[in-house]
């Protein structure tokens, strides 16, 4: 059974009289363990879609099921629970809480979910270690580089073992090197079974996924599977001989 399923998803924003049709009938299915990228130009509706998947907003029409929950039909408080337990979210702008330490930022969703503090702390230490942030526990977000902040955000998103990890331009504010680092981490978590949906306008970023869905003007227009990362010499040869 798909872990994410949307049917005919529409979203119309109304801002001072004008209607913006941000989604025009999106059908998305994501199987457990998939790493899917939704790629499309600015304004095509990627963030809108991700927000509907996370229950941060409600569709104007259509249905969203995440891990069997009908997100479109849940109350705000039930959606808040869903966001805590079922989805992890990574934003372009990191969105860490500036006056909490790294450890406290990561712990917060765990504690809010009602888990035992010792469990949360153990999990957090494991994640921070894994993400190369073991020595940053007592640091505040403002003292970290962008790449480090995004890795903290990743730890925070994963602390409750979410069924799906949603990432909105997670490398949009990062230089190439830290961006690649974050994408490699996503790939590693995917290889360990984490389901991931990433949205981006950048082909290189999307290329880390195993399936890419192309979006335009609020619709999906085509999709493809991507190869397992392998030997690049074939493609170098091919492109060089054309060039």
């Amino acid at each position, binding site marked *: 059974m798909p872990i994410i399923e949307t049917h005919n998803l529409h979203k119309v924003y109304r801002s001072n009289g004008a209607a913006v049709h941000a989604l025009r009938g999106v059908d998305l299915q994501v199987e457990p363990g998939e790493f899917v990228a939704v790629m499309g130009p600015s304004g095509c509706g990627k963030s809108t879609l991700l927000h509907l998947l996370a229950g*941060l907003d409600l569709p104007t029409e259509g249905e969203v099921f995440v891990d069997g929950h009908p997100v479109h039909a849940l109350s705000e408080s039930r959606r808040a629970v869903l966001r805590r337990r079922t989805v992890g979210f990574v934003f372009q702008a990191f969105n860490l809480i500036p006056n909490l330490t790294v450890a406290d930022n990561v712990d917060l969703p765990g504690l809010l979910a009602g888990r035992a503090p010792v469990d949360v702390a153990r999990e957090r230490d494991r994640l921070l270690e894994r993400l190369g942030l073991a020595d940053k526990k007592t640091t505040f977000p403002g003292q970290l580089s962008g790449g480090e902040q995004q890795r903290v955000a990743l730890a925070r998103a994963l602390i409750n073992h979410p069924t799906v990890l949603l990432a909105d331009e997670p490398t949009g504010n990062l230089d190439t090197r830290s961006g*690649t680092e974050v994408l490699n981490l996503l790939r590693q978590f995917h290889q360990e079974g984490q389901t991931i949906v990433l949205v981006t306008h950048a082909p290189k970023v999307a290329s880390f996924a195993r399936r890419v869905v192309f979006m335009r003007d609020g619709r999906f227009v085509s999709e493809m599977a991507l190869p397992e990362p392998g030997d690049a010499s074939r493609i170098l040869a091919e492109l060089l001989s054309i060039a």
Partner: protein
Amino acid sequence: MLTYALLGLLAERPRHGYDLKKAFEAMLGGTWQVNIGQIYSTLARLERDGLVVSHKQPQELLPDRKVYALTDQGRQALQTWLAQAQIPPARLKVDFFLKLLLARRSGLADGCALIWQQRQTLMQSIAELTPLLQRPRDDEHRLLAEGLLFHLEADLKWLERCEEAFCVGSKEQGQEARSDRVASSDPPPRPDRHLPTTNY
């Protein structure tokens, strides 16, 4: 091209033909195989033109082999070539564009489908190249991959324009404002506006 590659490799040190073949191939990550015959014919021409000289090197048990070295004249030719700016090649995908135009005129194929298919092909290449970005920043093959990636990204961007022009549909409300935005080349992604500061 091969001519100057051989001159360049000989500027490093004198080499024999097979050594040149191996060095050339290694330089491009094994992506270009050259025929040894082509190496020897190029060397012969260079020697005739006075850009390289050869001398016989005796080998135990094996026949003598020719070792080639750069002459002053060869060094000068290489220097001149290196100093020349490269004329930018027009890399627009003419064949593809022709298909697109003819699909529209003949009505025998869906231009929009061609665009999507082309995009998938480019994405496939990008996905195959990105592993090279893991290599150290001064790695020569990584640099090569980065160059190719920039081209592929530009091609993808252009396909977005083609898509606008060729793919009908979604011309409903809100389109006018949008097309301006897409047309202005690569707007940076806007930071999310309507988000809570935390995700829980």
